[in-house]
């Protein structure tokens, strides 16, 4: 049995770094596609060589929503597990590499079919839009690869627990395992629709597809996907940021309880994405909306814990007054500044989420570009800025380098550029959405209808924001390449915070996985069994596939 070390083992570091490289490559390509999209939607630019808007839209969504996030998260979690529970065994590491290659081959396969125009079905790949089978097979490989990596983490964690009976596991390892359990359970839905519905249908083995069932299985996965993105950001907020600022974690137990609540309540809630979908009974939509609102509890617990961490630190440094503690925070340290800005953006992001999930309010914003603005705040600002902030210590830690002052300054500038660009882009998306501008669609004046003409200034603002954000992408790539290959050699800390109360010991019940997974399964069965039986039994004739691009 290996023991915990301060530094991630060199071989484990290689595995984590491989994931991060794919993630940042996806950011470069997907970010460029995003820039092109906002330019096209401004109405002032047309794509050359007959390239379809929907091809670049799919490229953007898949590369950033699915590839950047999944690769970064798994790489980060391998590093976190190795750092807190000791070097991976050779078997676990090998399994991790198998997972990595499955995911990479799957990504390359899907990307090939998207870029050759055979899979312009957007990242939600809603039937009856039909992509080439290779696109779905590639996605299935990505999911299977992530499961393999998840099992590598589970076995490593189980080994640690066996060797440390009666002890509470390190917080970051507990959180990584919780996130992978969440991922494993929720990806069963998307795997089911891809393997049993979409692949046979795209290969011509079946003629028709049950559209509502495939969308329901997608959203069974699609909402917890958001939490799969968010929880690693919360890991950084809870377990790393307090150390970065020089303070203590407000409460270890609160952090663990929040993660368990996310695990329980983020899966049986997919219907709040389908509130305007005919074919699902209002009662079951109501049940899932109630469960959705339960997720607000751990989100607000997290907000409270963050404020409390910052205030406790500020006051320990002599801060006075109601908000004097804000002045004591290390604003010039990019490892803190980038995630902090991410946290600030989560206030409107979370609020927008509550609006989306409220049935009546959903009718105002459903399928409008408000929703696009919303998830560009959640994943593309809160999550991504936290990932950038984590990269500023994680990459040099793994490569045996140190971040220079110049790079730190550039990282501060990068954060500001991102915040400004996103304020323009996401802000105008929100307002245009309230005026009825649709999401997902290319530029059109809809026959010069007065309502559509109202949206154009907002679409130009989106292009301005998108251009600023692309500058932000160039800056982060410069920083990442520097930290990986050119920064001075040295030792960088992998910061892990201690709890404010040293006597605090989290309840072992929080690691009773049989109990929590049992409850997860029970909640899913309650929320989904009856409506899914109904969707299958009372299905209209299925739909043929359409290729509308």
């Amino acid at each position, binding site marked *: 049995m290996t023991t915990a070390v301060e530094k991630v083992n060199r071989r484990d570091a290689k595995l984590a770094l491989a994931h991060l490289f794919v993630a940042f490559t996806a950011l470069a390509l997907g970010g460029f596609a995003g820039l092109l999209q906002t330019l096209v939607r401004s109405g002032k630019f047309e794509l050359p060589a007959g390239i379809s808007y929907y091809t670049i839209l799919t490229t953007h969504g898949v590369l950033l929503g699915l590839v950047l996030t999944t690769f970064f998260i798994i790489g980060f979690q391998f590093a976190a597990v190795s750092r807190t529970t000791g070097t991976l065994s050779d078997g676990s590491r090998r399994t991790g590499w198998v997972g990595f290659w499955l995911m990479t081959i799957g990504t390359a396969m899907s990307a090939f079919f998207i870029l050759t125009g055979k899979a312009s079905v957007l990242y939600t790949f809603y039937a009856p839009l039909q992509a080439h089978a290779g696109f779905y097979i590639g996605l299935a490989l990505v999911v299977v690869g992530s499961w393999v990596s998840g099992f590598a983490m589970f076995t490593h964690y189980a080994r640690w627990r066996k060797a440390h009976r009666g002890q509470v596991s390190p917080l970051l390892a507990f959180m990584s395992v919780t996130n992978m359990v969440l991922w494993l359970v929720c990806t069963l839905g998307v795997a089911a629709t891809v393997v049993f519905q979409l692949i046979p249908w795209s290969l011509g083995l079946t003629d028709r597809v049950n559209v509502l069932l495939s969308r329901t299985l997608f959203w069974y996965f699609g909402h917890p996907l958001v939490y799969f993105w968010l929880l690693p950001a919360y890991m950084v907020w809870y377990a790393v940021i307090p150390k970065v600022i020089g303070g203590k974690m407000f409460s270890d137990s609160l952090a663990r309880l929040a993660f368990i609540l996310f695990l329980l309540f983020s899966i049986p809630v997919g219907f709040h994405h389908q509130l305007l979908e005919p074919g699902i009974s209002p009662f079951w939509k109501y049940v899932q909306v109630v469960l959705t609102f339960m997720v607000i509890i751990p989100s607000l617990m997290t907000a409270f814990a963050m404020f409390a961490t910052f205030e406790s630190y500020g006051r320990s440094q002599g801060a006075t007054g109601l908000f004097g503690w804000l002045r004591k925070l290390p604003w010039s340290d990019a490892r803190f500044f980038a995630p902090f800005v991410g946290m600030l953006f989560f206030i409107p992001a979370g609020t927008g989420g*509550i609006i989306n999930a*409220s049935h009546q309010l959903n009718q105002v914003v459903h399928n409008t570009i408000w929703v696009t603005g919303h998830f560009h705040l959640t994943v593309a600002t809160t999550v991504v800025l936290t990932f950038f902030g984590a990269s500023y210590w994680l990459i040099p830690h793994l490569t045996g380098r140190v971040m220079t002052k110049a790079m730190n300054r550039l990282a501060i500038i990068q954060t500001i550029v991102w915040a400004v660009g996103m304020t323009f882009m996401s802000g105008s998306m929100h307002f245009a959405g309230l005026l009825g501008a649709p999401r997902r669609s290319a530029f059109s004046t809809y026959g010069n209808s007065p309502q559509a003409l109202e949206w154009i200034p907002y679409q130009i603002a989106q292009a301005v924001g998108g251009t600023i954000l692309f500058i932000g992408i160039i800056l982060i790539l410069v920083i990442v390449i520097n930290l990986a290959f050119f920064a001075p050699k040295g030792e960088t800390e992998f910061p892990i915070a201690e709890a404010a109360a040293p006597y605090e010991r989290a309840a072992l019940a929080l690691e009773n996985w049989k109990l929590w997974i049992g409850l997860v399964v029970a909640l899913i069965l309650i929320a989904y069994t009856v409506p899914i039986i109904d969707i299958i039994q009372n299905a209209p004739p299925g739909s043929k596939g359409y290729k509308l691009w």
Partner: protein
Amino acid sequence: MAKPTTAVRQTKKDEEPALKGTLASVFLLGFFIIFAWVSVYFLFLHRL
């Protein structure tokens, strides 16, 4: 035995962090959520 207990209580009380700013922050956050939610709700009512 009353004295030490009081002393312990006193120490514990002193150790409680002052979190007035946190309280104010979470209230501000709550007000923002309510304001935004109600604004869109009125938009919904207006369009009925």
